């Protein structure tokens, strides 16, 4: 069995401490600054524009199964659905993973109920399990976007090659599109087809950005401090290697 080395244990404890400390700070009401992310700020405008055009909104949670990524997507789905419910607008949710269906339904229903619009739109019309197969999912989303003339297409989650099929259909339908994905290889395709693209770790920040939940905000702040430690290690490692011409720090860390 592979055991953690001493440096891994130290880093593990340090990183966990950072995250827990920041969550505690956020819970006690400390103000945690979150930098502006243009792609996330525009979501309200996208919902507004779809409402003005009287065209439905599509929220696509990608192809994530029960995972952290799915929870990030769904927290944004909750926000989008509440905003749309306030404006009496339907939010269409194509689902690719069976386990994600029940959760998406729960978030969707809760949001409409919270805004006093429960029962305004039928769940089975708006949340549809399409397919776990990438081809079928992509094609079906594209067809749905064109048929319903989607006004705002919000893509939040992990995608494979179907990213281009879905986003291109949205572009052809004239929808305002915001993509937010941790899948680095699909980012270029979203950049060329969507109006706004948020990628990489910004995807994980989206949950905290919309929910202002102390756990999410605190862990985001904690992760930033972890990155700072990593940055410090990198700079130290480079300096030590350059000055001594020996990779001493790497040897120490991998000991």
């Amino acid at each position, binding site marked *: 069995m*592979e055991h953690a*080395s001493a*440096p*891994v244990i130290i*880093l*593990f404890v340090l990183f966990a401490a950072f995250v827990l400390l920041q969550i505690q700070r956020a819970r006690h009401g400390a103000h*945690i*600054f*979150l*930098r502006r992310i243009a792609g996330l700020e525009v979501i309200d405008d996208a919902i507004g524009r779809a409402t003005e055009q009287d065209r439905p909104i599509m929220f696509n949670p990608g192809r994530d199964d*029960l*995972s*952290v990524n799915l929870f990030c997507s769904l927290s944004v789905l909750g926000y989008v659905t509440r905003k749309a419910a306030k404006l009496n607008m339907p939010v269409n949710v194509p689902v690719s993973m069976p386990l994600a269906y*029940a959760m998406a339904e729960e978030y969707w229903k809760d949001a409409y109920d919270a805004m006093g619009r429960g029962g305004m739109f039928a769940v089975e019309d708006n949340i549809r399990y*399409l*397919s*776990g*197969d990438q*081809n*079928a999912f992509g*094609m*079906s989303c594209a*067809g749905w976007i*064109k*048929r319903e003339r989607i006004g705002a297409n919000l893509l939040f989650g992990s995608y494979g*090659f179907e990213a281009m099929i879905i986003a291109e*259909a949205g572009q052809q339908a004239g929808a305002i599109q915001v993509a937010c994905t941790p899948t*680095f*290889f699909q*980012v*270029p*395709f979203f*950049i*060329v087809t969507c109006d706004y693209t948020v990628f*990489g*770790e*910004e995807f994980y*920040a989206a949950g905290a950005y919309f929910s202002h939940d102390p756990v999410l905000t605190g862990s*985001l*702040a904690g992760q*930033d401090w972890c*990155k*700072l430690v*990593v*940055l410090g*290690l*990198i*700079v130290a*490692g*480079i300096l*030590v*290697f*350059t000055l001594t*011409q*020996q*990779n001493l*720090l*790497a040897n120490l*860390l*991998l000991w």
Partner: protein
Amino acid sequence: MTYNRKRQIAAAVLVLVTAALVANEVRLLVTDPEYDWYLRIQRWIAAVCTMAIYTFLYRENPFYRAFEHVLLGGATGMGCAVIVRQQLIDKWFAPMVQGFRDWFTTGMTPEALSGVLLIVPGIVGLMWYFQYSKRWFWLSRITFCITLGAGVGLGFKDTFNQLLPQITETFKPLWVGARIEPGLSLLARVSLSFENIIFITGTISVLMYFFFVFERKHFVIKGPAQLGRWYLMVALGAFFGNTFMTRLSALIERVHFLVAEWLQWG
């Protein structure tokens, strides 16, 4: 051009294309001594499916819609069959039944126990279906928490095991001296050092781009973050070109199927 006129032209084109395809098939039937009806029907179905999907490039239409649903149904059915046969039966039901059989025939051996214990994930999995009961909904949370906890735990382990080697890989000297690479010319040293500097600035600046809770007011953060953005754009451009080539090869494969295998031209 009026709507009726457009429809007439579309109908005429459709008739001409169909006639050409039928003529081509007759040509194959007459000239090919190894004409295989079964294979030709397969290729016709594949070709019609391919073209139906490609009609989406023009617009969403009933032809596309029909085949979209065929693919959707087929993929879902296939998915169900794969899960039932390869997961539920092969990896759960059959070993569990074997485990119980061994228990009753040879007693509780470690092999029998490992099979018998498969009943636990089965029950835990079935509890997920309580999602659809308001009264017993809480039971589905047990499955949910186990799944999520196991996923996060395994992910955490992987992250830390991968993180340290990734960090140490970025330790590169700003100047590659004789102690690191003996026997290199000065030009080669300068070139290697320059490569390292590009790599180091890229890593540090991209890392700083993904800071969220530190304000980008001070030039120490603002400058590298902007540089990181440029690095990311260059990398994404390279990815785009690379993936575009892959997609083109997929298109070439389809066109090759239509021309060489279905129509058998050339």
